[in-house]
């Protein structure tokens, strides 16, 4: 279990005079837990969100003068709870009188101990996470709701992260909350029999946030670091709340090990630097060490290894190689073969082929890719033709390589990837000019 990177304990703030940024930091840290507990207390997502916002607004006003309260979390929940009651009373006058008065009675009857302990807040946060990641919601909604509610991102920030319009995001959130309310998605941690499957669902959401941040699918930037960091934060949070789960360790390790290469993955201009060309001194060694320890734990757990842990083990082998030439490709090929048995996907087949190229040469890998494309590798977009192009280039089949780079370029959507493909194509053509294409 690791919660080491969590900011300093709340106690450290007590009584200090603070700046707006300090308050901001407390909010970022507490937003998820405060909202989670308020949802349980008031039984309604929207009402809890409004109440939390009001509580934070009052904190912004008061804290700079009064100092941050000893237990900011309990303070925020208590103020939010009163605000929710006020709001219900105001609305009750207007309409839905009976229902809302019932809600008020329910809130008033929920005792909230002022010194509410961490465990209780943790339970509420888990409820919130499981509700946001409920399988009855579609994946986009789960991701948006988790970032909005658990990570405390604004609707605008969620929209920006996924390059979608803010009102589309807002609609997505409204629809998801409507479904939670009307289909009565429970605000509960699933019962033990369901827990493994539901944790897997949460991990899928976290991984989806991470991959969107780490390898964006469209647009001008190669990475959106904030999203990758939010995903890692979610992973740590889950690990803290449900300690000792190999799948959680596996995913957290995978994210930490990949993210450790962040500084080396692109030039200052945002051009891609391939793994083989990366300056490995730029890799974040502390993060790698943390990732390696987690992979170790995940793989040592009894039972069939989970696919995140195996992917993390591959990332670990890269992280441990001092130079590209030192990479243990044989073991990497073996791990990809394990992955193909656990959870075969076209992307894993593609990566397996790339590793095979390092052990058995490009011709063997090309056979694998041709078999993959015969089975409908189209779902891989530009990745498949780009990988073929690399192998064909290494085999000296330059005309075919050129055609493959062109097909990749025709479907690639991320700007840095397009620039990289164009550069490769340019290099190929200048080193092997031929009359046909001028």
């Amino acid at each position: 279990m690791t919660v080491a990177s969590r900011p300093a304990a709340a106690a450290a703030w007590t009584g200090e005079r603070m700046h707006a940024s300090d308050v901001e930091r407390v909010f970022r840290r507490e937003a998820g837990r405060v909202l989670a507990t308020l949802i349980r207390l008031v039984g309604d997502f929207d009402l809890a969100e409004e109440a939390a916002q009001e509580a934070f607004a009052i904190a912004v006003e008061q804290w700079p003068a009064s100092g941050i309260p000893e237990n900011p979390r309990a303070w925020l929940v208590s103020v939010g709870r009163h605000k929710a009651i006020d709001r219900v009373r105001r609305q009750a006058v207007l309409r839905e009188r009976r229902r809302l008065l019932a809600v008020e009675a329910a809130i008033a009857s929920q005792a909230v101990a002022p010194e509410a302990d961490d465990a209780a807040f943790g339970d509420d946060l888990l409820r919130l996470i499981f509700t946001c990641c409920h399988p009855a919601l579609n994946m986009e909604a789960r991701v948006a709701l988790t970032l909005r509610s658990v990570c405390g991102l604004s609707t605008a920030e969620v929209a920006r992260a996924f390059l979608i319009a803010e009102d589309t995001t807002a609609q997505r959130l409204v629809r998801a909350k409507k479904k939670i309310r009307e289909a009565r998605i429970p605000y509960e941690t699933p019962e033990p029999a369901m827990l493994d499957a539901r944790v897997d669902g949460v991990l899928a959401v976290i991984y989806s946030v991470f991959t969107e941040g780490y390898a964006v699918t469209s647009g001008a930037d190669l990475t959106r670091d904030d999203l990758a960091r939010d995903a890692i934060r979610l992973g740590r949070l889950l690990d803290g709340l449900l300690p000792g789960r190999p799948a959680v360790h596996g995913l957290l390790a995978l994210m930490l090990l990949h993210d450790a290469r962040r500084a080396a993955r692109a030039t200052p201009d945002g051009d891609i630097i391939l793994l083989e060309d990366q300056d490995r001194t730029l890799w974040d060694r502390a993060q790698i060490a943390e990732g390696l320890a987690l992979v170790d734990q995940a793989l040592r757990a009894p039972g069939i290894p989970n696919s995140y842990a195996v992917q993390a083990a591959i990332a670990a082998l890269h992280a441990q190689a001092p130079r590209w030439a030192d990479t243990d490709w044989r073991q990497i090929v073996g791990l990809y073969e394990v992955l193909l048995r656990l959870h075969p996907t076209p992307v894993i087949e593609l990566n397996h082929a790339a590793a095979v190229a390092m052990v058995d040469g490009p011709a063997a890998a090309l056979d694998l890719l041709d078999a993959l494309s015969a089975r409908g590798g189209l779902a891989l977009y530009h990745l498949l033709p780009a990988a073929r192009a690399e192998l064909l280039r290494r085999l000296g089949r330059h005309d075919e390589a050129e055609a493959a780079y062109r097909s990749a370029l025709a479907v690639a959507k991320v700007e840095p990837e397009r620039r990289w493909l164009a550069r490769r194509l340019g290099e190929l053509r200048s080193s092997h000019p031929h009359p046909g294409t001028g």
Partner: protein
Amino acid sequence: MQYLLLIYGNEAEAAKMGEAGRTAMFNEYRTFTESIIQGGQFKGGNALQSTATATTVRAPNGKVLTTDGPFAETREQLGGYYLVEAKNLDEATAIAARIPGARTGSVEVRPIMTYG
């Protein structure tokens, strides 16, 4: 809270089922239905005749139009339903998953709208 569990399946496939298969299926449904009656979740339910017997009615501007067949041609057809009482969606989906038809087709879980 009540949920309607709509059972969809491929009629053409079901029609190919022999007498023994049909009896086995019937028994499975009976066992399932008894179990949710025992559990207090059963509020109602029926199997439907095939879509070959369906008639769709529309009455735009008061003019009645009847057409043969279901509202839409789909791969799976509505073949029956249960109305159940469940604490929340998780409980409702857990009941839905136990419906014999869920193994070969699909069950749509729809909360019943409440007023007031």
